[in-house]
């Protein structure tokens, strides 16, 4: 079972409560870079343009639900949040994420995890909240065991040359041009790219570049 299958299964079984999207992850340290933040995502079934706006805008550290999860408030409705900065919730509503419930969980290695259910109209009765809370626990346990089993991209181990090569290729340079810029042979550039691809767990060049962008190696 993959994370997206878990998400799909949860959406099927919770659709009657008005759940349209969900999001789950462990809590990155405050001030973490977007690349670090993305490694904490366990399950994500959200409108893609919303995800981009959220991470690009650096909203995580200003997100009132994140603050509540960090304090281990058991579960709470977004409508109950008292936040100084409610722009984020306004933006979420524009993407159809009007109502939400977030559950906080404590993992075995003592880190906090959060699980949000959201939709335009959600049933937020006490009984539904309890059902969703239980769903979140078992789903997070499954997602965590998947993550621990999967090798993570070895971003930290890219060499300087490999990173430089990716940066120039992302600027539209050919292998030959890059080899001239870096003062090495074209063969070496091919080698750098294939090493970077392997270390990032990418299936091709485009994939390697997209992982490199997402994890902040190149900007």
């Amino acid at each position, binding site marked *: 079972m993959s994370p997206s299958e878990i998400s799909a299964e949860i959406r099927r079984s919770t659709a009657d409560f008005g759940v349209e999207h969900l999001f789950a992850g462990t809590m990155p340290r405050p001030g973490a870079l977007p690349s670090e933040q993305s490694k904490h995502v366990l399950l994500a079934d959200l409108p893609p343009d919303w995800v981009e706006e959220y991470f690009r805008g650096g909203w995580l550290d200003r997100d009132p639900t994140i603050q509540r999860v960090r304090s*281990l408030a*058991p579960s709470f409705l977004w409508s109950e949040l008292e936040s100084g900065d409610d722009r984020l919730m306004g933006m979420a509503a524009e993407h159809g994420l009007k109502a939400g419930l977030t559950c906080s*969980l*404590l*993992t*075995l*290695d*003592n*880190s906090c*995890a959060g699980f949000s259910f959201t939709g335009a109209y959600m049933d937020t009765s006490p*009984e539904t909240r*309890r*059902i969703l*809370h*239980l769903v979140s*626990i*078992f789903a*997070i*346990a499954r997602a*965590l*065991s998947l993550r621990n089993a999967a090798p993570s991209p070895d971003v930290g181990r890219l060499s300087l040359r490999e990173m430089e090569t990716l940066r120039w290729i992302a600027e539209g340079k050919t292998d030959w041009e890059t080899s001239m810029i870096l003062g090495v042979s074209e063969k070496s550039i091919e080698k750098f790219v294939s090493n970077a691809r392997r270390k990032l767990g990418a299936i091709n060049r485009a994939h390697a570049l997209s992982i490199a962008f997402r994890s902040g190696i190149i900007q």
Partner: protein
Amino acid sequence: MITFIDASNIHLPSSQALMEQAYRLRHRVFVDESGWEDLRRDDGLEIDQFDDGRAIHMLFLEEGQVVGYQRMLPTTAPHLLSEVLPELCEGERPCGPHVWEWTRYCVEKSHRERGRKLSYTANVLLSAIVEWGLESGVSEIVIEMDTLWLLRLVQLHFRVTPLGFPKEIEGRDTIAVTAAFDGRTLKRLREMRGDNARVTAKQSSQAAGGLLS
């Protein structure tokens, strides 16, 4: 090593001395710290109606001091879920010689989680349940607990089944579950602890006779 105290040895003076320490630890943790005022006693010993001949007390000692404790109660006799918290079980109550109830789990403050890992003492106590269970024909335990701990149990490879929805009890979100375990659970606990040693003596050499009969 975990020390077992049950009907077969609780009358011994050495057991009595250890049980007094255990009852004091329970009082410190459940009354003084958690504020279960109904259990407060002037002598500082937390003892309830289930501390009778049927209970199995598991004690973790360090230099002669009880630093961890838990109590197992048979579900074939009155226990917390049947007598005190029946509202947490919405369906049929699990009952039988293979199901015991895990109660009064507590660890001395100085021996609790530091940093990110499950503390050694907590791990040894959990391992003791699994080792004891696997050798005594016990395959699952009933637990009433703060919902917050549920995820950790699942991560430790207990197969957890809720007996009802969480309810608020004395300000805490409380749920009753059964947690089944097997060799995988024990392996996981030992991996986390970083050693393969037993934490309980073999059942045959233990004072806990009569358990299988």
